[in-house]
């Protein structure tokens, strides 16, 4: 019994760290607010209105969450489809980040839906085939499954179920392909969602290329997130790296930075084409125009240049800082489209309530907890090569003890 508790929560004496206390507070308040929302309805907690039906929980939890969880499919494609196998050490953490990201996207969505218990209806009776949201829903559900299947070998390794683990290797390629297909579809469709609101989304952001923008920027988000996430987790979870795994994270980081620079360059030109096609130059010198330019210059052109400089000078630190900056840029872009430039003519404009913000923060915090919990138990940072015999609870406990 005592051992089981140890397996679940680790060393009880190490439980009360400053990080745990602060995050625990956020999660506690968040859970209370979630209960309040479920009992009293969305109006009691959110600042949503009849003119602004989508707020932070869609704009951040779903729109931004999905984009930032793109690392899974990006690295899976890099390793398994483009044959750059030297990136394999980054794959499992990226898939876990993506999977946890999607789990919390779905949780956020559940909180935002009026009748979340009807979600299965949508899949059992697929009536809304013309709906972009239907496509997003189906792809997210499908991709969540794919990611679960992609990550599950870590469990097999942990349990030392070698034959199942070997069988699973055969699925890898297919899962990678399906994952990329589903990601292409729903990453772009998150942009298509806004095509139906030409009078509501600010003309500088409204573009027929929205699906393309969302897809291409999701690759940028995926690469940048992996740069940031790998640098953090290799520092924080260094003790979880198996002694046999030797790879040069700096070299991989530079490689990812190079790819991110190239995709940002493409994205910058796509955005410029979109701007020219919309031909609303007159709006550039308005408050919204300035916001648009900050996004375009500060969060697309600038990181593109910084990535290039970082790669040329082999300055890994610069690439990492740029990665974090780019992640901020992606958040900024998704916020602009889903909240700030949305309903731009409506006043007063929507501003999320402190309760909405707390719930979103609580979801992210729980995601981090789950990531940490799994990394400390399963072979995530490096794969466990098949060995003999099955794990007993004793062994598992010994492993966590080491952690």
């Amino acid at each position: 019994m005592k051992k089981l508790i140890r397996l679940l929560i680790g060393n009880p004496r190490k439980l009360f760290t400053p990080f745990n206390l602060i995050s625990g507070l956020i999660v506690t308040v968040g859970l209370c607010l979630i209960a309040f929302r479920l009992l009293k309805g969305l109006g009691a907690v959110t600042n949503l209105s009849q003119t602004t039906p989508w707020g932070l929980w869609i704009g951040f939890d779903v729109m931004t969450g999905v984009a930032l969880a793109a690392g899974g499919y990006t690295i899976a494609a890099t390793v398994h489809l483009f044959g750059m196998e030297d990136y394999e050490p980054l794959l499992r953490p990226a898939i876990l980040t993506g999977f946890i990201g999607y789990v919390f996207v779905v949780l956020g969505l559940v909180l935002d839906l009026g009748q979340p218990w009807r979600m299965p209806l949508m899949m059992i009776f697929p009536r809304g085939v013309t709906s972009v949201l239907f496509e997003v829903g189906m792809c997210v559900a499908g991709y969540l499954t794919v990611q679960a299947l992609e990550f599950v070998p870590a469990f097999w390794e942990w349990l030392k179920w070698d034959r199942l683990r070997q069988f699973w290797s055969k699925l890898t390629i297919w899962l990678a392909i399906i994952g990329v297909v589903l990601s292409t579809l729903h990453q772009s469709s998150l942009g298509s969602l806004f095509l139906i609101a030409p009078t509501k989304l600010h003309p500088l952001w409204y573009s027929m290329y929205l699906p393309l923008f969302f897809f291409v920027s999701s690759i940028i988000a995926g690469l940048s997130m992996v740069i940031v996430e790998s640098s953090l987790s290799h520092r924080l979870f260094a003790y979880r790296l198996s002694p046999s795994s030797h790879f040069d994270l700096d070299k991989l980081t530079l490689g990812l930075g190079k790819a991110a620079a190239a995709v940002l360059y493409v994205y910058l030109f796509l955005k410029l084409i979109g701007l020219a096609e919309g031909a609303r130059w007159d709006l550039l010198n308005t408050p919204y125009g300035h916001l648009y330019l900050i996004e375009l210059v500060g969060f697309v052109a600038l990181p593109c240049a910084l990535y290039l400089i970082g790669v040329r000078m082999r300055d890994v630190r610069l690439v990492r800082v740029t990665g974090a900056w780019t992640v901020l840029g992606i958040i900024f872009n998704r916020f602009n489209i889903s909240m700030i430039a949305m309903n731009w003519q409506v006043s007063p404009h929507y501003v999320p309530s402190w309760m909405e913000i707390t719930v979103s923060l609580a979801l992210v915090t729980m995601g981090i907890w789950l990531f940490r919990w799994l990394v400390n138990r399963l072979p995530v940072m490096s794969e466990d090569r098949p060995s003999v015999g099955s794990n007993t609870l004793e062994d598992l406990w010994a492993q966590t003890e080491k952690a």
Partner: protein
Amino acid sequence: MNTKVTESTKDGEHVCDCSRRSFLKLFGAGAAGVMALGADPARAAETAGRVRGEEAMGVLVDTTLCIGCRCCEDACNEVNGLPKPKVAYQDDDSLLEQHRDTSPTAFTVVNKYTLGKGVEITRKQQCMHCLEPACSSACIIRAMEKQPDGAVTYRNDLCLGCRYCMLACPFDAPKFEYSKASPLIKKCQFCFERLEQGKLPACVEACPQEALKFGKRSDLIQEAKKRIHDSPDAYVDHIYGEHEAGGTSWLYLAGAPFEKLGLPQLDEKDYPELTSGAMATVPTVLLIWPALLAGFRHFALRRQEAHEERSKRHV
């Protein structure tokens, strides 16, 4: 694109057929590799659908006849089992001065628009019942549906409460019950149950001024044109809803530009068309992407093999 109009259908029975055809066309468009957003075959199918709406019923709202008595509000609330308006129309018309919006408990409201020089226009607002409704095409489970008789109805047993219909609707017609734990969308449903019984919509029946005229949409457009023609000084030469957002079942006449009466200026393009192009690329991605990706992998493996062979030879 009008060549497809001839194959349009005349009765409700073919409604399903229409959507199936448009789906097949979407698929066809995708399979043909139409990567460009805005596929034309899809548009043709939509046009066929629009003619169906022409045969449906509608209401002509003549704001020059409206006196702002709000009898329509009263009747609407009663028929739909909504709470009585707090301020009855007989007592006080100061309510007209505030700009009220429809809500989950008021599917129609009358607002007064003061346009200077003592010109005051009162306008009833409600769901416009688009011929090609944005809400319906956007709905994740198609709880919103255009009926053959013209009404855009809502199935509260299907709705997930995602509120995408609210984002999609250019008129902001669907309203959400934010204060309920099990909330639904609420909006004017054109008294579709009354229509089935051969009755008039409640508001039309209640209007003492005959400012609301119920009839076949094509007849209403003729009637509206006649009114504009007969008294050109009383009206601006425009029927709001004839073409806006692909046409709406509810139509407006007014003596002042419509944008001053709180109606949005919209393109003639219908709303489902805005996303149909993007949706048409779905089958393309599903077909082409796996093959392409498998190809990438094949080349990657091939390159590796060649590399290994070469290095073996050099050893």
